[in-house]
């Protein structure tokens, strides 16, 4: 019989070997406490972003300019709710409870993507969000499909499949506006002006200031650094903006033929940290709305519980 060595050193070595050979870590495997903690923070933050992200877009469902746009937007927002669910479930496999995650979101202890603290002022913002915000999210999520934690990586595969229409519907809105009247084109440009820089912030602080990146890369939770993803996003998105005939609000943006990349200006990281700290335009609204929706739903949860109890009692009596 094989003797089983379960000392911490042995478990750690086994974990390290798995990571080294690019194998997945599964829920019942031993894992370092810091790995678990990092994943819980990242996955729950990701889940919160999907859920809070429904608010800025939901804001336009009743005012979508046609039945087609309305149906598409509803389908997209529904998807985001589903993404929240997949991610909360993935975090729960790490021993974190759903109730605790919701409590942490509402108390401000847990964060969500700061992009959702900006308001959606015009219909063009719905186009810009799909094109830029979902575009940036997809770039990050494609990377996370290869994350070392099995449930997270599998959730990402599913989410990426569903996301495929999100960016396209946004680009379609932008294209329609960009080819429309002068006012419509101005609306599209205004939306791009407001959403461009916050979209670049979605990839997180620069590598030089990102405390977690190095460890996350070593654990193969992440495969690319914030700056690498941000550069790729700029490289892919700039020609798309050109096609739309819109101007990216960055005077320093220019093609660097030698590097094979676009050079771009400095992100306003002070603004980023202000929004992260809760001082964005919509932070308070977003949480207030989440608390209200949760409280308004209390009767539904109570009714479901009462129904289940009554059914169980009837089954027992029969």
């Amino acid at each position: 019989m094989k003797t089983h060595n379960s000392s911490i050193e042995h478990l750690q070595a086994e974990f390290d070997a798995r990571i080294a050979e690019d194998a997945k870590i599964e829920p019942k495997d031993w894992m370092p406490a810091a790995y678990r903690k990092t994943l819980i923070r990242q996955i729950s933050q990701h889940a919160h972003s999907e859920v809070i992200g429904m608010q800025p877009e939901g804001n336009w469902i009743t005012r979508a300019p046609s039945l087609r746009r309305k149906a598409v937007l509803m389908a997209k927002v529904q998807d985001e709710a589903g993404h929240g669910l997949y991610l909360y479930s993935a975090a729960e496999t790490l021993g974190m409870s759903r109730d605790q995650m919701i409590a942490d979101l509402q108390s401000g202890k847990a964060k969500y993507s700061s992009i959702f603290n900006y308001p959606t002022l015009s219909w063009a913002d719905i186009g810009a969000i799909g094109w830029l915000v979902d575009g940036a999210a997809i770039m990050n999520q494609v990377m996370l499909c290869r994350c070392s934690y099995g449930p997270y990586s599998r959730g990402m595969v599913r989410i990426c499949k569903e996301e495929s229409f999100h960016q396209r519907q946004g680009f379609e809105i932008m294209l329609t506006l960009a080819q429309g009247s002068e006012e419509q084109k101005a609306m599209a440009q205004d939306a791009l002006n407001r959403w461009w820089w916050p979209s670049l912030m979605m990839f997180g602080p620069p590598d030089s200031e990102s405390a977690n990146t190095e460890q996350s890369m070593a654990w193969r939770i992440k495969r690319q650094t914030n700056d690498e993803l941000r550069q790729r996003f700029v490289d892919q998105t700039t020609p798309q903006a050109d096609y739309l005939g819109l101007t990216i609000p960055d005077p320093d943006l220019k093609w660097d033929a030698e590097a094979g990349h676009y050079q771009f200006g400095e992100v306003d990281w002070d603004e980023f940290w202000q929004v992260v700290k809760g001082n964005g335009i919509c932070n308070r609204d977003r949480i207030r709305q989440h608390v209200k929706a949760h409280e308004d739903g209390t009767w539904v949860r109570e009714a479901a519980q009462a129904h289940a109890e009554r059914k169980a009692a009837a089954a027992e009596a029969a």
Partner: protein
Amino acid sequence: MSDHKLPLFEVFIRSRRGLDHKHVGSLHAQDHEAALGYARDVYTRRNEGVSIWVVKSEDIVASQEHEAESFYDPMDDKVYRHASFYEVPDEVKHM
């Protein structure tokens, strides 16, 4: 003693690390622990798996295929949930 008194378990196997558990079949066993052992003997004789789940069959609630039409009906007319619904100009890459 009759086998029929033993509860039925459904068996799910993860064939490789990183993949989902997949349903492979069922078996009778006296309890969960025994079901795991039997599942190993019956379903993984050729190293088909790295992890097994056993779930009591009575705990599984399934939708019915003959009800599928009405059950999935709401999804039928929502073609816009697919990326192919949107036309992307040839010149636009990476979308």
